[in-house]
């Protein structure tokens, strides 16, 4: 096994992925800045839904946040060109992940994937060929890489597809073709194709085909005989998603990732040292094993929580549960202070941006975060610790009737943030 992991292989596929990934990320950073999202999504909100333990991650004041994006874009260009590849990938990953961690409201699965790719590119020798690094070392064509690195990258993509497919094995997706039935309705009036897209059968076909593709893509792409078919399917699948749904850069990132499956042919090179791994090799092996273990563990953590994961969203993030839910929600808070108790009703719309309101109204941990914020605010305002926060929160899932999401009688100010089970999230009661 060790011999196969260290087998030198052609690094062209890795280089193409590196170049495409860097290019797409440079475009994504520029696009984010041009759309004004640096200000509207990151700098301007007066409250941010920070991550437990990472509350120190905040946006820099302008113009430093613009500079942050400028450096991030340059680092992405560095990755694309293969200039000081590992350093650029590390810097890009750090800057990108910082942005991602500023506010949970902006969390996207493909942003998480970008952070993972950047972290891997900071370790994997992706600049060994077809890069400025390679040219500096004497040959643009560069050097082969150990097959293990290619496998690690492919395994990461396999984890994404595999868990995305497993997450689709649920009643809503397979038996009701939801939320696709809801989403496709928006095309009802499109001339010509609208009628086809809104046929119930279309959503069913897309649901089953999507699940089948996700579940089989890791093996289908890895096996040389089925690879052309799966590459064609990937093109059709991701272009269709990009055309039909507002998924931003997701499709381009995934299509860039497919290039990792370009055949990495063994090349003749000095024989790798025989015997057990030593030194750096041992560290590389440990890194790869730990990485994969973490990537397998994070998505399955959701099984540890009771209730419907798509409803409670405990263990939902970092688990490749993509395009599974259409949720609408509405939340207001009752702030109870003093003795005799006095109640003040607070709408989060007064303080939060529309995107934040939309995100928090269906995600229990964000409802809790804002409750804690309100508790601190009213404790300071009333100079008392006797502040209780209750939420009137309703949501619906994939076309079901609305129902309460949060127990209205639980003082959220007294509930801890963290990874534990949240018994104050009410179970999904009604089936459609």
């Amino acid at each position, binding site marked *: 096994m060790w011999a196969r992991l260290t087998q030198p292989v052609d690094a062209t596929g890795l280089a193409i992925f590196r170049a495409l990934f860097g290019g797409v990320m440079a475009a994504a950073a520029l696009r984010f800045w041009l759309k004004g999202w640096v200000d509207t999504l990151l700098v301007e909100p007066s409250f941010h839904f920070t991550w437990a333990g990472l509350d120190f991650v905040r946006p820099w004041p302008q113009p430093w946040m613009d500079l942050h994006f400028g450096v991030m874009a340059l680092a992405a260009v560095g990755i694309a060109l293969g200039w000081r590849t590992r350093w650029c990938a590390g810097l890009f990953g750090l800057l990108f992940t910082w942005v991602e961690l500023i506010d949970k409201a*902006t969390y*996207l699965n493909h942003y998480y994937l970008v952070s993972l790719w950047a972290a891997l590119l900071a370790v994997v020798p992706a600049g060994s060929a077809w890069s400025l690094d390679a040219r500096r070392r004497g040959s643009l064509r560069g050097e082969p890489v150990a097959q293990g690195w290619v496998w690690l990258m492919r395994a990461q993509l396999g984890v994404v597809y595999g868990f995305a497919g497993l997450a689709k094995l649920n009643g809503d997706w397979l038996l009701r073709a939801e939320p696709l039935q809801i989403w496709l309705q928006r095309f009802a*009036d499109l001339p*010509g194709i609208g009628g086809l897209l809104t046929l119930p059968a279309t959503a069913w076909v897309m649901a089953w085909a999507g699940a089948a593709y996700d579940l089989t893509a890791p093996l289908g792409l890895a096996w040389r005989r089925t690879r052309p078919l799966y590459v064609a399917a990937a093109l059709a699948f991701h272009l269709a998603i990009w055309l039909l749904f507002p998924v931003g850069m997701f499709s381009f990132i995934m299509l860039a990732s497919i290039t990792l499956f370009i055949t990495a042919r063994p090349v003749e090179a000095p024989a790798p040292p025989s015997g057990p791994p030593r030194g750096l090799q041992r560290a590389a092996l440990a890194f790869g094993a730990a990485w994969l273990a973490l990537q397998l563990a994070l998505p399955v953590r959701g099984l540890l929580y009771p209730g419907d994961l798509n409803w409670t969203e405990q263990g939902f993030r970092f688990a490749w549960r993509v395009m599974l839910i259409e*949720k609408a929600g509405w939340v207001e808070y009752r702030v109870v202070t003093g003795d005799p108790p006095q109640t003040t*009703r607070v709408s989060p719309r007064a303080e939060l941006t529309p995107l934040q309101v939309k995100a928090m109204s269906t995600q229990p941990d964000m409802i809790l975060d804002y409750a804690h914020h309100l508790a601190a605010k009213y404790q300071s305002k009333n100079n008392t610790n006797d502040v209780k926060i209750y939420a009137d929160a309703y949501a619906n899932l994939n076309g079901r009737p609305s129902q309460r999401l949060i127990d209205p009688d639980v003082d959220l100010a007294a509930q801890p943030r963290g990874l534990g089970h949240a018994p104050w999230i009410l179970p999904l009661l009604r089936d459609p």
Partner: protein
Amino acid sequence: MNTNNNKKILIFAIFSSFAGCGEDAAAPADLRQALLRSWGEDLLLPRYDAAREGAEALHARVGDLCAAPSAARLEDARAAWGEARRPWKEAQVFSFGPYSMEPLRYGPKIDFQPARPESVEGVLAGDGALDQAAVSGLGSAARGMPALEVLLWGAEGPVEEAFAPGSRRCAYLEGASADLGATVGLLRDAWDPAGGGYLLELTDPQPDGYGDLQMALGEVINRMGYLLENLRLDRLGRPLGREFGGSPQPEVVESRLAGRSLEDLRDSLRGLELVWFGPEERPGAQGLSGYIQRRSPTFDARFREQMERLYAALDAIDGPLTDAVVSDADDVQALIDALTDAQRFIQVDVIGALGLAVGFNDNDGD
């Protein structure tokens, strides 16, 4: 990239190239576009027209009153104020765009609530000009419908003295009513596709605006929910005080001097029905009903149920609202509860069923 429109063009082009159906390019307009256009042309603009005409009628009645003041003419002027207010409140779902956005922001210039008698009295006590041009330069609290309400209902002493020809109150009334008609006209023109064209932002959304028809439709439906929230929190909740400080505050009731608070609420609810079913008096007018039926035929019945409950709760309140928030608090609370359920129905069930949960940008991806 917005681009949902661009994407759709691409989808259509691809489909047409395969199916050879390029002639379908002249296919019927998008139902959402037709619905948004009907809301503008059959509901909003006619109501703003009616409100402007009402303001002009009020201006005429005020002229009559001040020419020969009498109790009967004062009642005529007050009735004209109420007539101008009805279509205005019926259009309240559309309190966005030029209604609320700078630099136009006509809404507060027409209906800054709650009325502030002290602002109006301050102007009356001054010696500045009070013609239309002068009133249009006053702050929002000293112009528009609430200022006219203070002038018509807040006068003390005999009518003949309070509204004596040439008095500052009469000059203020004439200037403020003329300003009201002009400002409603400006708001109407700002929406008119032949004028400022804000309606086109909804019916022909651009990448730097709503982006696509789905977002534009979502805006209007969300505004239905926001109107219910406004009724619940600002127009009932704050005056009732139970969840806003603990004690009743009748002084923040809307249209409290005219005793029209409950009628205002009724007109606003009527506006929701107009959005849902379309105005009956306009043949061919559309409402959300026709669109949402495609998703589920049960929504009409559920909406009717919500409205019946709202009207029943409204009817149960012994008016005026300034008294009810003190002496009939449970019935006021019952209406608030009904409004809560109605808001949840609109903002969760309807929005969810139509896939309209507002995605404010395409950063809002997977």
